[in-house]
């Protein structure tokens, strides 16, 4: 068992999250992609914690999990708010703050 495999997995997961974030327009998928990227960083932190024989990395990963939970709550509340006001979960149709927006 070498740490290389974990590094490979973390980088691939991060990239999948990045691809989903760039190429999709569904707000839920954007949210889940951000979560996936954060989780990939979490995996990297845990791997480094094991490699360096230092529990500090695990503590940072634990704090990250709390931050992820806070981010999830805020993002989902924002999605509910957007859907309630505009009946859409398309990130391309969000133009409320644009100058001269039609459906304000």
């Amino acid at each position: 068992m070498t740490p290389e495999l974990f590094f490979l997995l973390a980088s691939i997961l991060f990239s999948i999250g990045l691809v989903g974030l760039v190429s999709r327009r569904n707000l839920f998928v954007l949210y889940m992609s951000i979560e996936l990227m954060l989780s990939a960083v979490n995996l990297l932190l845990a791997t480094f914690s094991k490699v360096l024989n230092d529990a500090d990395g695990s503590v940072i990963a634990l704090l990250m999990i709390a931050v992820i939970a806070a981010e999830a709550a805020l993002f989902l509340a924002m999605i509910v708010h957007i859907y309630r006001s505009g009946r859409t979960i398309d990130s391309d149709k969000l133009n409320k703050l644009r100058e001269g927006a039609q459906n304000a």
Partner: protein
Amino acid sequence: MLEISIFTILALFMLGGSIAMITNRQTLFSAFGFLITMIGLGGMFALLDSRFLALAQIMVSVGAVVILSMLTILTVNAKNENLPYEPNKYKWMFFTALLVSPFTFLMYKSTSALYQSFSTMETISSKVLGKLLFSDWVLPFEIVSILLLTAMVGAVVIARKERRKKERRKSEERS
């Protein structure tokens, strides 16, 4: 040998789940892919000998975050015509993957060049983690608690129904 086979199975589940997450058109199916990925990540933490992290991952990410997002998806219940129209989804995905893949390779190479092997150590038990959390990391811990409180209040404020304008208008009409 056993560890490698477990790692392979978990990694395949995670990759499959994440790819299903970003490719599915139906939002609930991508949430299921996300759920599989999060459970696999918990298994990865267990494989890395950090027990408490695996437990926290299962409890918080799987038990709270994924379930909360699934509940939100079911509550929003966007019909097929409300979902975004993405005709060139796979083309975009292909080009983005092509663009991102060199950075993936670079990230993998640069991290794996740092350390070649795991240190032989005992598991990171919750005892060690708790002691660290309340001695060296007590300030970030408190900051995280404030952050969670702020996020809770903010989520309540953002997701609240905005009734005031209508009510005010109605009362003006009545008068």
